[in-house]
């Protein structure tokens, strides 16, 4: 039975670089997939593209390609990635340039475009899911709108012989499903196989999160070698049967428990995990430990795909202004609480206009609030005040009033820091499948 091996080279845009090199060198893989495009990343990339039409792709793409290309060329590993972000074509041209600089010729680089739908979302005045607002009302604030594409255009690019496929917004599991479509010739309506492949993609898309990363809890869940955590390999056969594993000498581990945590990650209804390719059914999945760091995935299924495509919409939504300062030793908590009271009074005095404001004591209540936090006096606490404001001037007031605690607040405050950030918030909507036309372009080094 035909089997392919797919590795995950990155699970988010800032992920470690070396594990991908290890996979390309020692993983025995045919495909290396880099998932680097969080919801908001594409909105920020779109702003970069507006400032410079040659930019708008992932900032680490060049570093990642330089690191893995030698081993990928040597071992015949094909690369699939969404590092094209808001500008797959520019990313493709850059990839060709990198390959040439490194002396690799004959490399075929495909780009997948067509996810960009900002104009459509505004002209059709689509309603946004979270805010409930019609898009036309927010037209000026909307910086990006990208439909989630599926696996098919990537599979087409592979069919045309691409060594590297660079996309913009594509559903994360689809990046992994694409080589299965290409290698096994699965049809677009073979729902069961598409469901199985999508479960594999979902397990793989966060890289180290299935090999023991984000899992360790000393004394309860111990993980060997987190400092050199290996990224996962999926061995998939033509029926959709799959095993999750890793390079033997890499750190981390693959167990039924690491797989259970990851299959439930960012999952809502296990019976209906919707992607552009399929409505996958995770409810029957079982994991079997076949050997050390080898877990078999069984029981996934699928039904007809949704008729609409999800679109993530990025819009400017004001500013976050923040300030922090620390207190330690006897009375640290009391001084921290006094500092928060002083800042609250000061922000009222200076007339802060904010949509939302929050007063935290890091070490006491900053993560889960007073209700769930357990009390007790830590040796040190960190004051944190943050507000969401409409304009930059008001955002700036927050950090300034925390900083003035140095000379005006409780005793011995140290390590003050302040920041102001423009917010690009994300919302979503749906578009008809027929309104989106993905296309593949091919370049050659």
């Amino acid at each position: 039975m035909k089997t392919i091996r797919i590795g995950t080279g990155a699970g988010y845009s800032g992920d470690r670089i070396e594990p991908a090199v290890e996979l390309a060198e020692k993983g025995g893989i045919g495909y290396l997939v880099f998932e680097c495009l969080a919801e908001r990343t594409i909105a920020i990339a779109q702003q970069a593209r507006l400032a410079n039409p040659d930019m708008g792709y992932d900032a680490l793409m060049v570093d990642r390609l330089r690191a893995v290309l030698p081993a990928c060329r040597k071992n015949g590993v094909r690369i699939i990635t969404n590092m094209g972000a808001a500008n797959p074509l520019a990313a493709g041209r850059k990839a060709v340039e990198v390959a040439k600089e490194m002396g690799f010729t004959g490399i075929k680089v495909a780009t997948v475009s067509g996810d960009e739908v900002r104009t459509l979302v505004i002209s059709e005045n689509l309603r946004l899911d979270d805010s409930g607002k019609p898009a036309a009302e927010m037209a000026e604030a909307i910086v990006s709108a990208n439909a989630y594409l599926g696996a098919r255009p990537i599979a087409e690019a592979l069919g045309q012989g691409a060594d590297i496929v660079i996309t913009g917004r594509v559903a994360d599991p689809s990046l992994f499903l694409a080589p299965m479509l290409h290698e096994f010739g699965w049809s677009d309506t073979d729902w069961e196989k598409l469901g199985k492949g999508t479960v594999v993609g979902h397990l793989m898309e966060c890289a180290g999160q299935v090999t023991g990363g984000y899992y360790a809890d000393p004394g309860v869940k111990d993980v060997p070698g987190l400092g050199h955590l290996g990224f996962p390999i999926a061995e998939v056969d033509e029926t959709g049967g799959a095993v999750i594993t890793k390079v033997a000498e890499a750190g981390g581990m693959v167990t039924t428990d690491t797989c259970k945590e990851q299959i439930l990650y960012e999952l809502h209804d296990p019976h209906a995990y919707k992607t552009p390719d399929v409505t996958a059914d995770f409810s029957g999945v079982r994991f079997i430990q076949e050997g050390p760091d080898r877990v078999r995935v069984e029981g996934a299924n699928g039904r007809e795909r949704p008729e609409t495509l999800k679109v993530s919409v990025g819009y400017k939504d004001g500013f976050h202004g923040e300030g922090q300062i620390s207190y330690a030793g006897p009375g640290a908590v009391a001084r921290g609480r006094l500092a928060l009271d002083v800042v609250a009074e000061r922000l009222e005095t200076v007339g802060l206009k904010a949509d939302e404001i929050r007063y935290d004591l890091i070490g006491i209540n900053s993560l889960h609030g007073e209700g769930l936090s357990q009390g007790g006096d830590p040796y040190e606490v960190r004051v944190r005040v943050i507000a969401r404001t409409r304009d930059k001037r008001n955002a700036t007031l927050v950090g300034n009033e925390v900083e003035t605690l140095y000379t005006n607040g409780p005793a011995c405050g140290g390590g003050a820091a302040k920041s102001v950030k423009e917010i690009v918030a994300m919302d979503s909507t749906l578009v008809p499948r027929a309104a989106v036309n993905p296309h593949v372009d091919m370049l050659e080094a």
Partner: protein
Amino acid sequence: MKLHEIAHSRTGDKGNISNISLIVYKPEDYERVKAAVTPERVKQYFSSIVTGKVVRYELPNLHALNFVMHGALGGGVTRSIALDAHGKSLASALMNMEIS
């Protein structure tokens, strides 16, 4: 005892929705945890954070429950002013829940 002694958990985020898994280590603990950790109890437990409904899905094959908590992330990961805007640490709060 705390759930931490018999189960493990991970939080995921999508928009303003947080999902928390609850996975028991030993299959024999599954029914007991299912009876004790109802969606109503989880909604009450996180009442200071979660503004919307809590839906529970059962995954008996995995000896796991999945709690989907609506309105849990301060308006959404990208807008939230919470220190942990993704709510990634919420699983640890669930692990602190006492069960008999």
